[in-house]
C-alpha cells in the first residue's frame, strides 16, 4: 500500500502550513513505513529520487485515449494543472483487483522497462490507485513533485525521530544513497554511522548570533577578529577525488547554478565563504544581481557574463584529508592564507581582516561602510574552533544600523498558518508627484514582520475597519495609516513600479501620531539608494 501511503503524506504536507505539524507527519512516516519504502519516500521528498521516465505528453496521451476530448478540455480548463486533471478524471475500471504498487516496485520496474512499454505500465498503475495516489504517481514520474517540505526540514524530522543531532545526519547525508538502508540501521542503533569516505558531503556550518550595540562593550578587542559581512549567499565548497560540490547554507547542492565556480574548484579541500557577484573592477554587486543567478538548474553563457560570480573565502575546514576544524580561528586563518598562496584558485579571494584597536574605532569603520553589498561586520573569537551550528559567544554578526522611512499602508493581505486569520502582510507606499500638480502614493515594498502580537491585533482590526475595496484575498485600505519601516538597503530595480527595491523591510513602529500627508516622499528614499548600484535586469 505504499504509493497510497506516500500520496497521503504528500497531501498532508502540501496543505499543512505549520512547521511542527510537518515534522510530526514526517516522523510518523519514518516510524510506520517499512524499508525500503521509507527511504524511497525520504528520497522523493528531498529531490534525491528524480524520474524522467514519463514526459507530461505521455500522461496526456494516456488520458486522451480514455476520455471524451470535450470533457477532458472542459476539465483541464477548470482545474488548470494537467497532472491533477488526469488524476481526477482518470476513469476507474471495474474489476481491477491488482494491489497498488509499492514505491520500490515503481523504482525497480521503471529501470527495466523498455520505453515502448512505459505507457501500458503507467496506465496499469493508475488503474490501481485513487485520485490522490494517481496525482502523487504522476508528479513523481514526471519529476514535478513539489512538496512544501524542504530537504532540510525532512532531515530535521529524521533527526528528531532518531534522537540524534541533525548535524550528524547532514554530515553523512550526501554520502548515502536512496533507500538509505545503512542510514536507517545507524539511526535505529543497529549499526555504526555510515562512513562517507571521499564522497563530497556537506559539513554543517558554523553560524553567528546577532550582536546588539549594548553588548559590544563587554568584548575584549584583542580576543576578536573582524571582517566585512558581505551580502551574498553563504556557501561551502567541497572538492576532492570524490567530486566537487557547492553547498548552500542549508546543505542543498547548488553546484548546477554556478558552473564557473565548480570549474575553478581544482583542489582537495573544504572551504567556507560568501558567493557574490563580483564585477570586472572587483566591485561587489548588490544582492539583487546575485538573485538573477539563484534557483536555476542551468545557466546561460549570457548570465555568466552579465553576473559573474566568485567566492570570498573566510575559512578552511579540510586541507586534503586533514580536518582543521578543531584548530583555533587564528590557526585556520594561517592555513587558509598558506593554502591560497599555494593553490591560487580562479574566481576566489580572501575575505580581508579588518584591523582595529578598539570597538569605538570599529564602530566608526562599520558606520562608514555604506556599500549595498556590505551588511555589517562579522566578529569571530580568535581562539574559536569550527563548530557546527549556532554556538553562543564564538561568532557574532554586527549588522549596520538599518535605514528607515515613514510610509503609508496601501494594501493588506492575510498571512499563513497561525496568521491565517490576521491581515499581517502590508504593502506600503510613499508620495510622489502625480503629473497633474497633485501627489500620489506609489507602493515601495511589503512587510510582514517587526510588529508585536498586540500591534498585529491592532493592525488587523484597523485593516478590517478601513477597507475600501477587495481584490480576491487583498484588501485596499484608506490611505491614512503611517508605519515606520526599517530596511537594510535600498537598491534600484526596474521590476518595481517605484523603481526601487528594499532589502529586508520590517515594521518598527505604528505612527498613529503622524498624518499620512506627512509621510516620506519617494525622493527621500531615492537619496538612500547606494551609489553605484546597477539596475537588476529582468
Amino acid at each position, binding site marked *: 500500500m505504499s504509493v497510497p501511503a506516500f500520496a497521503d503524506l504528500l497531501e498532508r504536507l502540501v496543505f499543512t502550513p*505549520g512547521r511542527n505539524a510537518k515534522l*510530526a507527519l514526517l516522523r510518523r512516516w519514518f516510524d510506520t513505513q517499512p524499508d525500503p519504502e521509507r527511504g524511497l519516500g525520504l528520497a522523493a521528498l528531498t529531490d534525491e529520487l528524480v524520474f524522467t521516465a514519463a514526459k507530461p505528453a505521455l500522461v496526456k496521451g494516456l488520458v486522451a485515449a480514455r476520455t471524451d476530448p470535450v470533457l477532458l478540455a472542459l*476539465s483541464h480548463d*477548470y482545474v488548470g494543472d494537467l497532472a491533477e486533471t488526469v488524476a481526477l*478524471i482518470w476513469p476507474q475500471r471495474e474489476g481491477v483487483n491488482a494491489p497498488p504498487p509499492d514505491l520500490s516496485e515503481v523504482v525497480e520496474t521503471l529501470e527495466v522497462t523498455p520505453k515502448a512499454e512505459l505507457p501500458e505500465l503507467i496506465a496499469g498503475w493508475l488503474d490501481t490507485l485513487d485520485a490522490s495516489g494517481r496525482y502523487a504517481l504522476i508528479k513523481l514520474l514526471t519529476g514535478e513533485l513539489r512538496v512544501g517540505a524542504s530537504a532540510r526540514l525532512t532531515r530535521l524530522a529524521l533527526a528528531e525521530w532518531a534522537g540524534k543531532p541533525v548535524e550528524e545526519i547532514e554530515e553523512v547525508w550526501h554520502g548515502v544513497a536512496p533507500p538509505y538502508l545503512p542510514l536507517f540501521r545507524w539511526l535505529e542503533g543497529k549499526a555504526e554511522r555510515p562512513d562517507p569516505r571521499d564522497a563530497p558531503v556537506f559539513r554543517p556550518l558554523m553560524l553567528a548570533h546577532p550582536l546588539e550595540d549594548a553588548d559590544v562593550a563587554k568584548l575584549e578587542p584583542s580576543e576578536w577578529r573582524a571582517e566585512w559581512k558581505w551580502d551574498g549567499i553563504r556557501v561551502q565548497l567541497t572538492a576532492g577525488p570524490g567530486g566537487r560540490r557547492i553547498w548552500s547554507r542549508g546543505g542543498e547542492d547548488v553546484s548546477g547554478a554556478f558552473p564557473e565556480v565548480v570549474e575553478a574548484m581544482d583542489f582537495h579541500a573544504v572551504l567556507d565563504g560568501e558567493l557574490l557577484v563580483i564585477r570586472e573592477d572587483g566591485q561587489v554587486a548588490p544582492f539583487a544581481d546575485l538573485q538573477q543567478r539563484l534557483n536555476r538548474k542551468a545557466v546561460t553563457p549570457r548570465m555568466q557574463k552579465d553576473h559573474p560570480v566568485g567566492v570570498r573565502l573566510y575559512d578552511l575546514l579540510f586541507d586534503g584529508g586533514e580536518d582543521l576544524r578543531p584548530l583555533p580561528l587564528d590557526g585556520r586563518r594561517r592555513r587558509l592564507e598558506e593554502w591560497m598562496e599555494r593553490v591560487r584558485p580562479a574566481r576566489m579571494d580572501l575575505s580581508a581582516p579588518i584591523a582595529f584597536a578598539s570597538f569605538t574605532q570599529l564602530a566608526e569603520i562599520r558606520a562608514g561602510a555604506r556599500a549595498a553589498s556590505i551588511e555589517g561586520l562579522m566578529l569571530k573569537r580568535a581562539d574559536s574552533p569550527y563548530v557546527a551550528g549556532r554556538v553562543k559567544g564564538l561568532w557574532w554578526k554586527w549588522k549596520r544600523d538599518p535605514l528607515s522611512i515613514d510610509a503609508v499602508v496601501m494594501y493588506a493581505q492575510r498571512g499563513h498558518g497561525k496568521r491565517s*486569520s490576521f491581515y499581517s502582510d502590508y504593502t506600503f507606499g510613499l508620495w510622489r508627484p502625480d503629473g497633474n500638480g497633485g501627489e500620489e502614493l506609489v507602493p515601495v515594498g511589503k512587510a510582514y514582520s517587526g510588529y508585536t502580537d498586540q500591534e498585529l491585533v491592532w493592525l488587523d482590526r484597523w485593516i478590517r475597519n478601513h477597507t475600501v475595496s477587495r481584490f480576491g484575498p487583498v484588501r485596499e485600505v484608506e490611505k491614512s495609516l503611517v508605519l515606520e519601516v526599517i530596511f537594510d538597503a535600498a537598491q534600484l530595480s526596474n521590476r518595481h513600479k517605484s523603481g526601487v527595491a528594499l532589502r529586508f523591510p520590517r515594521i518598527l513602529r505604528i505612527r498613529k501620531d503622524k498624518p499620512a500627508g506627512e509621510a516620506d516622499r519617494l525622493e527621500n528614499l531615492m537619496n538612500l539608494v547606494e551609489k553605484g548600484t546597477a539596475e537588476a535586469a529582468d
Partner: protein
Amino acid sequence: MPPHPETWLRVTPEGLHCLPGGFTVDPVRPVERAVITHGHADHARPGHASVLATPETLAIMRARMGEGRAGASQQPLLPGEEVAHNGVRIRLAPAGHVLGSAQVCLEWQGSRAVVSGDYKRSRDPTCAPFEPVPCDVFVTEATFGLPIFRHPPADGEIARLLRSVELFPERTHVVGCYALGKCQRVIALLREAGWDRPIHLHGALMGLCRLYEELGVPLGDLRPATVAEKAALRGAVVLAPPSAVADRWARRLAEPVVAIASGWMRVRQRARLRGVELPLVISDHADWAELNATIDEVGAPEVWVTHGRDDALIHAMARRGIRGRALHLIGLGDDEEEDAAPEPAAAEGAEA
C-alpha cells in the same frame, strides 16, 4: 398524445413555473403559490403567500425565517401522498440531499416532469435516500457536472479526519460545513465511526442541529464551542460555518487544524485558496457519476439542467441520445457548498 412538458412548464423570472397549476418551484422572489424542494436559502426564500413542501422542509423554513416569513399558508405534503392543483397532480419523492429534501413530481394530462432540486445518491444517515421516478422530462442540477468530480465514500473521509485527530491530539480540529445538512451529516458520520465524545459547535449551527433532533435525527452530545476553554478544546472536533474556520472566530481554538467538508475540496487549488489544512471531500450534491447514472435510471428522453456545469453534462447526455437543455436559472447555486468565492463577504462579521 400527452402535451410536452415545455408547453406547460416555463422558465419565468421567478423560477420554473407550472402554467396550468399556477405555482412556481423554488421561486427566487415572493409568489402567490410556491412548491419548495428543500430548505437551503437559495431554494427556500421568504415571503410567499402559500408554500407546499415536506413537513421537515416547512419546519426548517420556519426555523430559519421565522413563522411569519416562511409562507403565509403552509401546506405539508408527505412523500408518497398526492395533491392536485387545477388538474396538475403533485407528488414529492425523497431527493437524498438534506433532511426533508424532495423532488417535485408533476403530472398533467398524462405527461410527467420531475424537478429534482438538489440531490445526491450516496448514503446519508440524516435523510431519506433519493428515489428515482421515471418521467418524460427530468430537471436536474449540475453543481458537480464535470467528470473530475467523483466524491469518495464519506466514511473514508471521516476516517481521515479521525486519523488526523489521533496524530495531532494537542490541536483542535475545526471542520467548516454548511449549517443545514452537511453539519448534521458530518456529526452523524462521526457517531457511526465511533466518535462518542462531545462535538462542539459554532453558534450558527446549533439551532438546526436541535431541529434535526426534534425531527428524529439523533446527533449525540453537542456543546457550544464559544463557551469552552481553549485548553478544553485540545483534541476536540469543532464544527463551524466555512466562513468562520479560517477567520477571527477560529482564534479561540487551540492551534486549529482547519478542515472543510465540501465537494469542492477535491480540487487542490480550491482547498489552498481557502487555507484548508485538511480538505474533506464530503458533498451533499451528486457527483459526475451519480448525475449520469440518475439520468439513465429515470429514463427521461429529455433532461433540463437548472444550474452548474450544464455544458459538460449536456455534452455527455447527447452522446447517449438524451436531449439536454440548459435552463440557466438565476439565483440557484448560492448555498455554501456551491459558493466558489474563497471568502464569503456576507459572513465576515458573524461571530455568533
